[in-house]
């Protein structure tokens, strides 16, 4: 498969109230994106367990996106503050594992920011295409 045609596989964790809504708004606004991403909806970004992120990598994700409401906008008071803390930890582990930092990204996207969501997916896909498949990808997974 040529590098051009290779489509990375990206897992995006989205919270129900904001970033998932942002992905919806991207749809409503018809903001085109590469078909690289699979969204996993959770009620709040605070639900995202570092284990889920590692799990996604081990199952072959080329990148994992952690997204939620803007700080202060969390539907559950401060779930995203906790996400921020967990993300710091995740980052350090990922660095330790020698995975490129582009493969794990955090972004706050509100439900109205469709274009932001789409361009985020476009950017990350671009970056990952340059990096190629994740070193953690199990064999047999494309």
């Amino acid at each position: 498969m040529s590098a051009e045609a290779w489509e990375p596989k990206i897992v995006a964790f989205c919270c129900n109230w904001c970033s998932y809504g942002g992905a919806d708004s991207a749809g409503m606004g018809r903001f085109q994106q590469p078909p690289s991403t699979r969204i996993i909806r959770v009620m709040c970004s605070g639900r995202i367990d570092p284990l889920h992120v590692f799990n996604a990598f081990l199952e072959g994700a080329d990148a994992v996106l952690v997204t939620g409401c803007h700080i202060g906008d969390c539907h559950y008071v401060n779930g995203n503050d906790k996400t921020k803390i967990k993300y710091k930890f995740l980052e350090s582990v990922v660095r330790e594992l020698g995975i490129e930092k582009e493969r794990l990204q955090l972004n706050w996207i509100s439900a109205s920011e469709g274009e932001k969501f789409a361009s985020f997916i476009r950017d990350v896909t671009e970056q990952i295409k340059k990096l190629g498949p994740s070193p953690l990808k199990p064999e047999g997974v494309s």
Partner: protein
Amino acid sequence: MKGSVAVVGGGIAGIQAALDLADSGFKTYLIESRPSIGGVMSQLDKTFPTNDCAMCILSPKLVEIGRHPNIELLSYSDVKSISGEAGDFKVKVVKKARYVDEAKCTGCGSCTEKCPSKVLDEYNAGMSKRKSIYIPFAQAIPRVATIDAAHCLYLTKGKCGVCKKVCGPKAVDYEMKDKEIELDVGSVILATGFKPFDPSLLKQYRFDHPDVITSLQFERLLSASGPTQGHVTRQSDGKVPKRIAFIQCVGSRNPRIDRKHCSSVCCMYATKESIIAKEHDPELDITIFHIDIRAFGKNFEEFYNRAQEEYGIRYINSRPPETIVDARNNLSLRYEDFDSGELKTEAFDMVILSIGLDPSDSTRDLAQSSGIALDDFGNIATGIEKPVETSISGVYVCGAAQGPKDIPDTVAQASAAAAKAAALLSKERGTMIKEREFPDEKPLLPEPRIGVFVCHCGINIGSVVNVPDVVEYAKTLPDVAYAREMLYACSSDSQVTIKDAIEKNNLNRVVVASCTPRTHEPLFQNTCREAGLNPYLFELANIREHCSWVHMKEKEKATEKAKGIVQMAVAKSALFQPLYKQKVPLINKALVLGGGVAGMTAALDIADNGYEVTLIEKEKELGGMLKHTTELYDGKKPSDVLDVLTCRVYENNRIRVLNEARLTKVEGYLGNFKGIILSKGEEVPVDFGAAVVATGARNFEPVGLFNYGKDAHVITQAQLERMLGEGISANNTTMIQCVGARNKDREYCGRTCCIDAVKNAVRIKRANSKSSVYVLYRDMRTYGVMERLYEDARELGVIFIKYTRDPEVQYGSVVVHDSMLNEDIEIASDLVVLSTPLVAGENEVINQLFKIPLDKNGFFLEAHPKLRPVDFATDGVFLCGSAQAPKLMSEAISQASAAASRACTILSREFIETEGAVSVVDEARCIGCGTCVAVCPYNAPSLQEVTVTSEEVSYIAKKSRINPAACKGCGSCAAACPVGAITAQHFSSKEIGEAIDAFNKDIGLIEPKTGTVEAVV
């Protein structure tokens, strides 16, 4: 007497009033003249002072209205007249022909796409085009198309007819006629909102120039859903502007065009829009021309300061400048700089007119047709102590229809109006509402049998994704027992098809692959429930917003992705277990803390709604701050208001008053609190289902400032108030505003001090016209209709001098620097009056007892500054009056009724229903570390001592238990638990893991199953 209410107007005011009423047992009609509810708020990009996305906070309310069993939404309908009397009104409504059958339309948008006729889009304030058949905006409720009869080619010329041809569900009906209906209701709430001022009335602003636009148009330019996707460009040449000016008070504070009011919101929205614009483009140069900056609300001053300091927005004090267009069509503004007294001209690329709020046409029409009194400003008239009651008993008002106000004040007033209507009809509560009835749930078979329904959504999905292919693929997935395609999965006939399929194929999990769960999950969950399936056995796979709409040019890849999304949903759903909302009984009694006007009003409204109240007051007597007020803004005597209230409280046999009392202990949660009150040395236990905090605030003592405490001639505004009440006259008085406010120590604005000062200045002048009264101010913040008081004062000869440097108080005089004249002025003063703000009372105790947060100034922090102004994040506890932030008496009363209304939505229930998808603890694995207790913002987990027996040894260990009544299901605890003892049901690690796992097996790698799948398409 009828147990129903008509709410006129579907903006945020009407929405809030309708939801409160429907939630507390009344059948509610919500009547909106536009095709969708949402009002002006739906057009806003963000809201001040938090810059929250407006649509994100509004849209859930829209959906709630759309699916509330007790709300009947009459959109695109006008109210013609209201007749009858309190308890029995007749409301005449005209349902305008929308030429689309609401029951049939699925909102797919195929008609809009094909419609050839384009007209100016009012949602984008005329800056873009929409089609003649249209859905006004993406989140519109009801989500059905409307034909604009004035522009439709078929309706005007008999040509075209395309929409009818392309409409799959055959909803278009060109023969439709207006229909008049009559509603029988017990009460009416007017929420008819405002109309943005039309600036073409004022020629000096050159609104005819394409680059002179209104603030509402600018709001749309800033919005991602606006005409330019949030890129600010000039209408004239599409270029990005570099210098933008805002002109404030366009259509406000202008007696010449009969707009004597201040519109209350423009200073803040201009500040907000400036900040957003700067965030989009930091290079932008923004200037706001203003008379005063009225940043009087909670956190407004801070917002205003940030705009200057962090964003470099320039504020220039002047009268509204004149717009000049030169020969080359360039714009400049001519203005007199009040700070220097100079006349200046400056060029700008774009000019934004901060337009004011005019009374709406429907307010005027309804007042005329139904005999409802208006005030001098054209708003619906109310009394200062009865801020939501109109001239007709049983008809209430809220929001901008009663006078200009911002969103939180509107929302509070809406709840207040609901409380009054509910109190009036309290005997009829629950008589006209319906509960949805469902068949018993079928027992769940151990083997998952999943049904997959893949939707074409007209052409929305089907034209990109190969739907039959996805169906075939779904059939090969593990546990899938049935799969089929559907044209519109959400149409009413599809619901019948889904139910049949569940029945015939014994399905016990359902996956619909269509659109977003954020709007459609409840619909399908309901369908499942009607077929005897637990609603939590349902999953939506979003292959529209997240697939067909965003991969329109890559059909094959989109189809592959759709398969992947379906696969993830199927894998996850196989693990779903039925979940139940628990019903817990509740105590239908309330506790009100604080016996001031707010507390008494809240207690009375709750009692009038039929519930028992315990009202506690720390002092000997009820009355709070109002006891020390000697005249109200409208000239009324405070004692008249106070005596009536106090009498009513003491005479009401549902209210128990405890004086010299304070709350010392609270435990429990929403619906079931237990507390201890210490009153006159005695401990009184109290049980309650909801509490209202109305503990007020206190006056700031300006010790050490401006010789206060040293010079007996220097007093506070509160002291002057008492003096004037005692009939002591004052001569040669100088008032200094903002003492102890708007500074480093206390950043906020006191909100009421300007109005208090003006009121007392007028009193002095009226008592003795020869006395001289000076008011030294920084910005005069006589917002809303209080502007009139300011005007009265100036007419009576009160002299207002703006200061930027602190004045100096000397013995017998005050020296102030007048920047306009650039010289120091010495004012002979017998009396110097310091206007000081209200400061927070001792709120820490209650803050600890209920675990409700305080803001940085020590006032209580509401759940959401815009849409939940009287709620706390903790359910069952509400807030009103100056305990939240300083406010006027009428505002405190509105808020108190609002808090009562919110409390009644709980007290009126027979039981409390908990969130279904809550987290649960596996006690065997729990190590009692308390992490969950620390992360939960709702106090749902707690550590309990449990006796554990292991290998015949018993010991006591701490184990976490999550109270399902308090858990909101965010899952933070599950993510934080170090030993994985907590399961966030419906979003468990197993379920998420299955989805991730399925993602790996995505397309091609999975081995097709053979033989066993019985699938029918």
